[in-house]
């Protein structure tokens, strides 16, 4: 653990692993371009046949990579779409990806908060009560085996009939997905103190509450953070799924849906990438907090 203080521990991408990462990215982009040419070629061939012209290879390449509604948009088209969505619009515009991302993000964070709270509370109950241990866990597992795509419309419809629309229904679907990793991680984490540590507490006649606050909770933090990273990504997925049904008009999920209605594949891909970057950013933020907290607590591994 003493090496935590050493400055040599590398936090960021160094020169020696930038090269392989770059190579992999280049490879993916190359494969993507080839796939785009191949998948978009049929339409161009059909067009050419109808017009009775012969397509040369350079023509084919240019045409397949500049279609308006390609089967698979080329990377530069997606990048262009993403850039337009992020920077080309006022952030309050309905066409702005920033605005849609914010709608999704707010529901994600609300759902993440609800899910994390529920997961921690259930874990505390499970660790302290044998009957909860046996009764809650099977239901929690069962809740995750139901496809979220089946649950989401029901939640939206039921809540809408109760007059609840907007952020909360989506947050509940996000919480549905995100409470589970927190629950599993916290049950494990709260049970990490070993027999000796518990005996030690007993030798001081500590109450259950004292054992919880002073030993179990701090010991569980590494597990909590590991599951928070899974949970926040799951919350984002849940929110996007929650934006798909019932004709939502705002959020990255709505962007995906309207893109598929109108065959705007570039819009779909741009929204997908926006969602991916959002997820990466959220997970990175949790990781940053994790590193700070665990280093401070001497729990960094």
């Amino acid at each position, binding site marked *: 653990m003493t090496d935590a203080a050493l400055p040599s521990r590398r936090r960021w991408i160094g020169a020696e692993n930038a090269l392989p990462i770059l190579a992999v990215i280049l490879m993916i982009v190359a494969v993507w371009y080839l796939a785009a040419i191949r998948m978009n070629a049929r339409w161009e061939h059909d067009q050419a046949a109808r017009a009775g012209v012969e397509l040369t290879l350079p023509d084919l390449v240019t045409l397949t990579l500049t279609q308006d509604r390609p089967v698979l948009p080329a990377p530069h088209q997606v990048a262009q779409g993403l850039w337009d969505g992020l920077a080309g619009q006022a952030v309050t515009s309905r066409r702005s990806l920033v605005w849609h991302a914010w709608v999704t993000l707010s529901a994600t964070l609300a759902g993440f908060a609800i899910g994390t709270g529920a997961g921690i509370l259930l874990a505390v109950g499970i660790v302290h009560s044998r009957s909860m241990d046996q009764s809650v866990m099977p239901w929690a597992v069962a809740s995750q085996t139901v496809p979220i795509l089946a649950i989401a419309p029901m939640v939206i419809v039921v809540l809408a009939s109760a007059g609840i629309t907007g952020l909360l229904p989506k947050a509940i679907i996000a919480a549905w997905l995100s409470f589970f990793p927190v629950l599993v991680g916290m049950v494990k984490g709260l049970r990490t103190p070993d027999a*000796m540590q518990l005996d*030690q507490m007993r030798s001081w*006649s500590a109450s259950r509450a004292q054992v919880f606050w002073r030993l179990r909770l701090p010991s569980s933090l590494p597990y909590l953070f590991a599951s928070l990273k899974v949970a926040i990504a799951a919350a984002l997925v849940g929110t996007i799924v929650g934006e798909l049904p019932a004709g939502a008009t705002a959020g990255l999920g709505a962007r995906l849906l309207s893109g598929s209605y109108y065959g705007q594949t570039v819009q779909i891909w741009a929204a997908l990438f926006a969602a991916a970057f959002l997820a990466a950013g959220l997970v990175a933020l949790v990781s940053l907090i994790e590193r700070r907290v665990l280093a401070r607590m*001497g*729990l960094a591994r």
Partner: protein
Amino acid sequence: MSVIEAQRVSLTFQTADGPVHALKDVDLTVGPGEFVSFIGPSGCGKTTFLRSIAALETPTAGTLLVNGIDPDAARRARAYGYVFQAPGLYPWRTISGNISLPLEIMGFSKSDRAERISRVLDLVELSGFGGRFPWQLSGGMQQRASIARALAFDADILLMDEPFGALDEIVRDRLNEALLTLWRKTGKTIGFVTHSIPEAVYLSTKIVVMSPRPGRITRVIDSPLPPDRPLDIRDTPEFIALAHEVREGLREGHGSD
């Protein structure tokens, strides 16, 4: 009044392979200020007996009294401090914070805690290390901190379960010497589990030799050594004779094993 009084104490664990007699008809009386070592091969019940004194196990038969009351009540009256084989310090607390832990649990005031922490740090010669974190200290220093923690709430009895078992011999010698000094200074009653004959002979006023299957006391040896013991007392004929007696006791309890 005796500090620890055991009469025909037995403890049987029910396991899948049938009952295990961890302790059988153990009789022992320990007076105030004594340094008692429990020595024997593994499975002889020495740790189980120490844990019974601490009310971490409950005997299935016989009477066991600590300070004249039953062990559970004695624990609530803060009769003993328990030192485990591993220091068990919390990495997120400083050394002072770790010593403060039982004091917080027991409800000592903040100023009282600070005063006690500096006193016990002094006692285990760790003054100046209160602000450090456990990982910044060596294994021996960590174990001393855990002894300080066990001393902080002024229990009359110190129960130690192979506290130096995980340390190397040089550190162990130093800690043994420091423990004797501490014992003379504080006058506490100490119960000490070990499997090292020299350690038991060097430290104790009373050596309890135990043997397994069933766990029982085979010999109780009162040490003729003076309370003031420099490390080189281990080369004197008295020490060697005593060590020999303990070894004999272990052998006869062990039978043909």
